[in-house]
């Protein structure tokens, strides 16, 4: 596959690994946060850490759209889905995310009409096919996904559809990064910036990270060589005493993002004053909702949404994991009470979630594995 396989080459990985190892100062450790769950997934899926020296530690950030949804929002969505007239549509990713009283999959098993879609436009298609039903799209995702929702709403309006609405859970990445930088217990040496968010917002908005917080950030692609390359770039900045925003993923990310997408997004969606993030609590101006002009398509206005607030389970330490304070295995319930089959926290659900990636793809007994596979 073009633009994919080229960036999965083992030989070049070995070269990059050697370069990375060479850059590490003896006795110093480097802690980088991959903001994005997509990076986490790549790291584990390809076994990328096998190429990293012990000195380089990657910690998982808050950039998994599924992981940051608070339980109460899941319950709210289920409450909407339980209405007999409603078809709730959702990406497959959401199906197993636990709310306070089960997941979409459980609600579906109990009779709610919940359907998976691949694109928000598929939800629109379902709305056209079922004029007698109310079709609600459970919108999740960062700035990457929000423009697609916005286009879909524009289309619904243009077609005059009265049975389509959006339950909007779009979040924005910058306030989450700022929250982490403001967290007192965090010591990071730099960031792997979210590649696909950046296709929309570009690279400029990260400047405050370098300038106000003094941390370098490299916007990174999602193939394993992209990540190794980005780590190499971060190490280079540190070695050279630079602190900049760089773009490793320039084949996909224009420095200024996608102006058309930003315009559509600004037309249809606006910042909420506050939004709750799983584990992180309420963060101001961190999420999106439909503007007044599109209020007719806002499920929160169309339906009586209970606005459930569910305290995270006592045992859940997703917040710490999302902030990079704890490694997944340091959570008390990791891998025993909390597994991908019976997730307690959302980080265990999405294959992008730090805990799920760690559990499914494993990093444990890493030396042993290397030994075994090298035979």
């Amino acid at each position, binding site marked *: 596959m073009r633009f*994919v396989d080229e960036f*999965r080459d*083992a030989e070049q990985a*070995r070269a990059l690994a050697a370069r990375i190892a060479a850059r590490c100062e003896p006795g110093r450790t480097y802690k980088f946060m991959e903001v994005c*769950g997509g990076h986490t*997934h790549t790291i584990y*899926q*390809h*076994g*990328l850490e*096998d190429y990293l020296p012990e000195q380089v530690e990657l910690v998982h950030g808050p950039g*998994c*759209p599924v992981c940051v949804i608070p339980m109460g929002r899941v319950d709210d969505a289920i409450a909407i889905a339980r209405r007999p007239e409603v078809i709730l549509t959702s990406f*497959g*990713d959401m*199906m*197993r995310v636990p709310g306070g009283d089960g997941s979409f*999959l*459980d609600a*579906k*098993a109990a009779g709610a009409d919940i359907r998976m879609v*691949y694109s928000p436009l598929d939800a629109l298609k379902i709305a056209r096919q079922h004029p007698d039903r109310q079709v609600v799209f459970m919108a999740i*995702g960062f700035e990457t996904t929000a423009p697609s929702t916005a286009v879909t709403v524009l289309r619904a309006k243009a077609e005059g559809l009265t049975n389509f609405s959006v339950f909007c859970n779009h979040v*924005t990445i*910058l*306030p989450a990064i700022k*929250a982490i930088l*403001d*967290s007192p*217990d965090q010591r990071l040496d730099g960031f792997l910036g979210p590649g696909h968010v950046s296709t929309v*917002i570009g690279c400029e908005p990260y400047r405050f990270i370098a300038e106000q917080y003094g941390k370098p950030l490299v916007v990174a692609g999602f193939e*394993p060589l992209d990540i190794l390359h980005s780590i190499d770039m971060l190490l280079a900045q540190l070695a050279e005493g630079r602190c900049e925003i760089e773009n490793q993923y320039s084949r996909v990310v224009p420095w200024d993002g996608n102006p058309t997408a930003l315009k559509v997004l600004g037309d249809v969606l606006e*910042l909420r004053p506050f939004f709750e993030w799983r*584990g992180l*609590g309420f*963060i*101001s*101006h*961190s999420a999106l909702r439909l503007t007044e002009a599109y209020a007719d398509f806002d499920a929160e206005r169309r339906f009586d949404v209970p606005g459930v607030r569910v305290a995270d389970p006592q045992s859940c330490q997703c*917040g*710490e994991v999302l*902030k990079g*304070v*704890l*490694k997944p*295995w*340091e959570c*008390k319930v*990791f*891998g*025993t009470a909390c597994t991908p*089959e019976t997730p307690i926290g959302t980080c265990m659900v*999405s294959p992008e979630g730090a805990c799920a990636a760690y559990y499914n*793809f*494993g990093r*444990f*007994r890493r030396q042993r594995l290397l030994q*075994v*596979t090298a*035979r």
Partner: protein
Amino acid sequence: MSGEVTIDGPVTEAGAKAVAGVSEQAVMERVARARRARARIREERLTMAHGAGGKATQSLVEAVFLEAFHNPQLAALDDAAALTVAGTRLAFTTDSYVVSPLFFPGGDIGELAVNGTVNDLAVAGARPLFLSAGFILEEGFGVADLTRIVTSMAAAAKAADVRIVAGDTKVVQRGQADGCYITTAGVGLRERAHDLGVDRARPGDVVLVSGPVGDHGMTVLIARGDLDLQVDLRSDTAPLHGATAALLDACGAGVRAMRDATRGGVATVLNEIARAAEVGIVVDEEAVPVRPGVRGAAELLGIDPLYVACEGRFVAVVAPDAADAALAALRRHPLGEQAAVIGRVDDDPAHLVLLRTRFGGTRIMDLLVGDPLPRIC
């Protein structure tokens, strides 16, 4: 799109301290024990995940079915039960078919229902002889469609050299089935003296797959039409009795186990072997044959082809010294032209399948949790 940022999160130090002093290694050993623990079923209601072939299916089978029906033949969870009746060594198996859509490129539910059961007998080392077929049909189902399915079953039975000798038909109310469900059972003769079984894999053994993986599952997923994908793929549904016989002829007792890689794909079969034989399996991702169309669709949908069902491919575990003969025998057979050695059995880490990635890294390849759902993250 920007503004004042405030935080109102939980205190984090307490959590961080709770595990202070515990090593990653100690935690992961506890986790490994939990992984191997007997499956439980916690849900009150079945979800689609219980039918997807992964962990939930395994829990359901172990916690409900094995628990109630405990007997050695069933507990083996082999593709077919090995029976001896009046001195005759038989194999006996069943599968229910609920595929949607009923007709798809390369096959239909009828062909699948014959081949699937033929294959469960074949990979058990038996010669498939007789099938039964139970039909559950939805009121309103088209007689022409039914005839097409039944005709296709007859052709598949002929191709597999089996007879459909017993049958049953039920019609359920409209809305209580999805057109047509078929359950076939099969009886075969275990002509060879040596027994096969997924618990017979031994460290050093070699793992082969008989051809490209995931064609069937991906074809059906796309044929449903919800994803609006077009691709030139066909189901791999085929009767494997010829290929398995060729392998057994070539390697005799060198063949430890065979299993057709259906629901849950090759990854699931490998996990079943690792669990049953208490061995580790190391797979070379690069060696696994995957067609470009399957790969492309899998990338688009965020699905791993190793978990996608085949209906005409099997995994074989053979003794180290039989590996070359096995590969050669398979490649000589029309259904094994693209057969490949994809990994080997190791003594450690027991119960686990490791994947050496194309990129040169290593990771666990566990049983699937839930359905392989298209995802966007």
